[in-house]
């Protein structure tokens, strides 16, 4: 329990440093920061003195209609601490710094988020669509993406030259 308190203290301290806010949801601390601070936040979280969250467990995008969020699930292989960091990304200009320099494992995950939400990760080595084909239009997991029947799509879609 004491560890938990210490950990929480660290997170709140970090939150004040990066203008973020801390919530708690089902026993997990959630740290919301603005997109420009994400590298600083994650670097700090990786190097926490007590319970470093040094394992990037998951990275995903999320569409909250008025803005996007990139959600980082951090855990550690040497403790039970876990932290959820959310980067708030502008919907009109969805750009966020890539964390591939901190965790190489973010490579595919960021590509997936780009593929599904159109969030651009600055500094990513190879930001291309991963699931959908290269000339796919739109970002499927956005809330405003219209899922039309394949029949309709086949009729209405214009063929690209050389396809």
């Amino acid at each position, binding site marked *: 329990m004491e560890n938990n308190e210490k950990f929480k203290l660290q997170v709140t301290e970090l939150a004040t440093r990066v203008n973020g806010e801390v919530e708690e949801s*089902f026993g997990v601390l959630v740290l919301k920061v603005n997109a420009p601070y994400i590298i600083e936040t994650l670097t700090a979280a990786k190097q926490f003195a007590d319970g470093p969250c040094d*394992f990037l467990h998951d990275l*995903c995008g999320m569409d909250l209609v008025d803005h996007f969020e990139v*959600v980082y699930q951090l855990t550690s*292989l040497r403790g*039970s601490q876990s932290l*959820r960091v959310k980067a708030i990304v502008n919907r009109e200009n969805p750009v966020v710094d890539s964390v591939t320099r901190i965790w*190489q494992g973010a*490579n595919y995950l960021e590509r997936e988020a780009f593929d599904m939400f159109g969030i651009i990760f600055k500094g990513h080595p190879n930001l291309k669509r*991963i699931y959908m084909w290269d000339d796919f239009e739109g970002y499927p997991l956005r809330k405003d993406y219209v899922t039309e029947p394949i029949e309709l799509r086949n009729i209405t879609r214009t063929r690209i030259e050389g396809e």
Partner: protein
Amino acid sequence: MSINETEELILNMGPQHPSMHGLFRMVIHLEGETVTKIVPKIGYLHRGMEKLAESRTYAQFIPYTDRLDYLASPHNNWAYVQTVEKLMGVVVPERAEYLRVIFGELARIASHQVCIASTALDMAGWSAWSYAFRDRERICDMYEMTAGSRLTVNIMRIGGISAEPPAEFWPALQSFLDDTPEMLEEYYGIFFGNEIAQGRLKNVGILSKELAENLSITGPVLRASGVNYDVRKAEPYSIYDRFDFNVPVRNGCDSYDRTIIRMDEIVESIKIIKQALRDIPEGPIMAKVPKVIKPPVGEVYHRVENPKGELGFYIVSDGTTKPARVRIRPATFINLQMLPIVALGWKIQDVVAIFATLDAVLGEVDK
């Protein structure tokens, strides 16, 4: 091109290729037989699970999860329903928890058997393949007795488990448990003990501990690189804190350890099932769950130890009957990132073997 110039051979392996487990494609750049670059291409099996989830109710999405890692479908169900249960605060009856553990561990054994079999097959160990599949068949039979289907079992429900195993299930399970030591000996004898197999697997495709951690690798692949980490121990979900078992760890970091660690895990799974059989109480198998599942507003991230790695579900509820966002953290999708890094400089044959030891199931990779 003059005769003095040479160029790399670019080989498109897959999506239709005998050794690609499912619809996986990799573009291999070759210098003779040596691999200079690998570009994995995925998405041939992409069904948009996360998008589908947003238009289904919570209960309707359970069968879809079967199609993630279809070799261990109870685990996917389990991860999903536990996340929803956590969100709703449902307490699952004791007997259902024990049955979930039994089916989950059976699925782990089945999945590992397929891994051993397909690794052997990718190295042309034909007989080893059919030995492991022969034994997996018994697990499929047990699924069939209980749930009616053999592969995509769909056995878990929000709040419990779909069916009570019939009377003939228990003797079948007992005889399966009794036969496993002999089976493992056979696998070792026909495949792992073979000089050629060891030559092909040992010291090939080294995935160092640091690289594994940096690449967010989980599951047996991580443990074969010398990291003692298992969600069942680190963050016990369900009733795993009641069982006495070890987490097998190996320090070889090579293809051989990545494969043979699955034999060790089968042994531990057998231990867990035996303890569950000993302790299983009588009682109901379903909790009282409202007809219409409407979790409160909130978000939960929950992960379980899938046979292939950590399967995570991140569900955001907006208080309606349909989830606002379901995020699936597929283990093998992330584990696959090691392939282009680790397999560089090895021969094509080693790439095939390294890919086999990852035990990638494209249903999970492509979601």
